[in-house]
């Protein structure tokens, strides 16, 4: 997947991007079996160049790496991996260790999976994933890590989690597969927003990643959940299917991440129904969320209707398919914007593309067809033409588009990789407040240019 064409101005990393999925799990340590620079490159690309997210507790320079040299290329690197893993077990305070391979061992044929199995036999929580860079992009790497955790830890340990506290069955539990750690710069805030949506319905949410999750202990409760919720057009679906096969857990597929009041209420209603919650409880939650959001929307009405700033009507998107869907639906259906060029940069598998593109044709505005594209050069030329016709458009794109925005005097909000001109801490675009945040950022770009 994803390696057919040459790419100018890349928006994703290689499969080793799965490393940051591991860093996103509390108490999980990546062990990178690759050349010396691989882990450092991926770490920097997905943190410093993704809104300066920071290396994470067990990421960045602390990542153990076999730093392969010529001798391992010739003789194999399994021994070096064993030694590094033994070192990591002694040195690092972590609950689970995930070996991720780079190009070199995947070409020379090191059997990292067997090595991880040996360590599991000996009682250590060790998982291995083959993420050689040539196998796919960072989204592929993320999916491979999810699959490895399910197959190598959750399935073998199911029913043997003696430390787990018996849970209160009256409170439903869901696992969420949504914003991807680090590859979506706003993942921490987004996941927290999803947890808060769940709290409105009175349900427990396993976020699995980030500051508001519970690390390995939380992962071990994944099989007990009542429902797996995939809030993404495709990433996470394979995990939900695997979990369904292994534990019979049903899943809710919600392809358009909820941004803003309208979509958050639709999502909560569907989630509530899937869990068989009382209608009254659902309505209370959505009424509260919508009322609150609309008080703020009412407050910006003056700015929107009386402003002399020539506010943008059209927006162009360059983002992964999840964010492109979520942000666009909010701007079109709730805010009355017109959708312009829409580039989906995550290179999803061919057989899922029609399904991913479908919602764009069902928005309230004129139907558009998104373009699946990871080559920045192509996008640049198309956007250049579009901005020549209407430079009052806003681009929801990446820092690559900054020079284009400057050239045309257009507006830009960097929402997708890479981001090097914006610091992201806990900003988020999902949920009731997420829509308001997007509006703040969007109109900030307008006001900053005008004044």
């Amino acid at each position, binding site marked *: 997947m994803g390696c057919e064409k040459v790419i100018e101005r890349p928006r994703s990393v290689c499969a080793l991007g799965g490393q940051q999925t591991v860093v996103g799990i509390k108490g999980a340590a990546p062990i990178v079996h690759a050349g010396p620079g691989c882990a*450092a490159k991926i770490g920097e690309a997905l943190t410093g160049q993704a809104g300066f997210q920071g290396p994470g507790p067990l990421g960045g320079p602390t990542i153990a790496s076999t730093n392969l040299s010529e001798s391992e290329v010739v003789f194999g690197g399994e021994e070096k991996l064993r030694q590094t893993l033994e*070192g990591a077990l002694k040195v690092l305070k972590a609950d689970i260790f995930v070996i991720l391979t780079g190009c070199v061992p995947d070409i020379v044929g090191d059997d990292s999976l067997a090595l991880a199995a040996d360590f599991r036999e000996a009682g250590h929580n060790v998982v291995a994933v083959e993420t050689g860079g040539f196998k796919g992009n960072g989204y592929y790497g993320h999916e491979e890590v999810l699959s490895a955790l399910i197959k190598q830890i959750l399935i073998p340990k199911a029913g043997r989690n003696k430390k787990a506290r018996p849970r209160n069955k009256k409170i439903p539990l869901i696992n969420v597969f949504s914003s991807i750690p680090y590859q979506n710069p706003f993942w921490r805030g987004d996941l927290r927003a999803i947890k808060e949506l769940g709290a409105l319905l009175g349900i427990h949410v396993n976020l699995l990643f980030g500051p508001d999750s519970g690390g390995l202990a939380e992962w071990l409760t994944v099989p007990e959940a009542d429902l797996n919720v995939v809030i993404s057009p495709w990433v996470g679906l394979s995990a939900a299917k695997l979990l369904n096969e292994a534990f019979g857990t049903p899943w809710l597929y919600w392809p358009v991440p909820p941004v803003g009041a309208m979509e958050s209420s639709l999502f909560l209603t569907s989630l509530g129904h899937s869990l068989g919650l009382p209608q009254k409880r659902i309505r209370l939650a959505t009424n509260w969320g919508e009322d609150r959001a609309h008080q703020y929307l009412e407050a910006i009405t003056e700015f929107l209707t009386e402003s002399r700033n020539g506010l943008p009507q059209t927006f162009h998107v360059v983002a992964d398919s999840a964010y492109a869907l979520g942000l666009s639906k909010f701007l079109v259906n709730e805010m009355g914007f017109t959708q312009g060029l829409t580039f989906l940069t995550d290179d999803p598998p061919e057989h899922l593309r029609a399904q991913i593109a479908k919602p764009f044709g069902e928005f309230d505005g004129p139907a558009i067809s998104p373009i699946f594209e990871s080559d920045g050069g192509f996008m640049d030329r198309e956007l250049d033409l579009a901005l020549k016709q209407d430079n009052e458009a806003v681009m929801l794109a990446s820092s690559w588009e900054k020079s284009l925005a400057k050239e045309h005097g257009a507006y830009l909000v960097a929402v997708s990789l890479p981001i090097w001109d914006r610091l992201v801490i806990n900003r988020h675009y999902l949920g009731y407040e997420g829509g308001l945040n997007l509006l703040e950022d969007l109109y900030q770009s307008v006001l900053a240019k005008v004044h």
Partner: protein
Amino acid sequence: MDYLKGLAAPDRCERLGAGVALSMGCGQIQGAILAGALGLNRRTYSQTYGCQFTLSLSIINTFQRTVLIAHGPVGCGACSVANAGSIKKFKNLRQATNEGLIWVSTNLGESEVINGGENKLRQTILEVDKLFRPEIIIIPVGCVPAIIGDDVESLVAALANQVSAKLVPVHSAGFKSKVMATAYDDVYHGVLKNLTGKLPLEASEQLLDPIEEGRRRLALSRTVNVLNVFSMSYDDERELRRLLEALDLKARFFPEFTDRGDFKTVLDGALNVSLCGTHDDYYLEHVKSLYGQPFITDTLPVGPRNTARWLKLVAGFFGETERAERLIAAEEAALNQVLGPFRQAFLGKKAFLSGGEVRVVATAELLNFLGLTVVGFKGHHLDRFILPAWEQLEVPPQTVFHVATQQPSEQISLINRLKPDLFVGHAGGNNITARQGLPILPLFSNAYGYMGYSGIFEVARRLRRILQNGAFNRNLAKHRPLPYRKAFYDCEADAYLEGPRPLSEGQLTAQNLGQ
């Protein structure tokens, strides 16, 4: 020196016997280097660091009117795409009109691993040449094409007449060297083979008036090529230019932020002056043997003694030593006048430095001058290029000099044992020691001056600000402890270095005394 017949530059472990896994007292360094005893370069527990590919980008990214084709999977070099933004800014400081970095990846996949990546690279080169018409297409080659055996040299030779850009392959597969700085040789290897060369005499020059020609030659006889590095700023360049102009010398900076033609015009300069042997020896030696251009590579002009030594060496080449001494005296007097109030803030403070071998030693001299005490070093690697800067520094012989490229676990052990008040570090490891609660001064910056006399003042100014209130890092250390087991903290920093250590103090002393 002539390595240009080879496909790629040799690994620095072999060419220079450089060490990357060592720990010793400062008093042992000279002996160990002279004895060629820099260890096995192996550790039993290692953490990630930059590879040659990454570091080669620090030069390549700065070239003007250049397209970069990263030949590898899309992750190779992904850490440096932000340079498209920052480099554009720094390029604009030097030349007002330029494009941002144009970055292309051949995005190698499973099919190329099986069938080879040459076809994809060929198509990319032709397409990029047609689309962007750059002066240079530079092609860093990563691990995958190196293992699957892509013949990039033959491909480039075959395409040379089909494209208008000059093609420059840079063989920088990460697994080929444990010494990251081999990257500089990789880039220069490509540059020397493909961009360097005497300019043909232009017709207009041939007809030049003899008096004009005399003037031109006179100007060139006072022209110094200063080899700049990515870990310096435009302010640094301006400072060095100011000092050289005070000696009636014209400074020309390259190879960073340069373009295709510059590599030819620089050959007419009277002298090449390096700022850091680690960065430039491969280029300087080759250009001397190929074109007879003399060079000086000695210390880095950071800190007053190093700056004075550097200036005197350059001036000495032009017979201007006395003039340089007067300049140095005037600069030092001016500096001492303004530093008074700052020195009070630094009195009794202990510093630890981490980063490139030459840079940390030169910066230690600067810190000593400001009144701080240096309690230890961690150098990325160790080889003979450290020696000139070393001669400017006075530290007790037992002061730790640890050698490791990044390796934060070793850094943490050293900081815990030495308990400095300040950490001066290379990018990438500062966040670790910030979590140990220490104030941090970045070892270099593209945005601030460190070199020459104005650099000393600039460092003093920033350092006082940094030491004024260390609340953030102290607070962080309380709430976010580092992720290491207790047993780890009982180990010394050298616990994971494999094989025999360098010679013991006794052995080295015996050697130094010639016994």
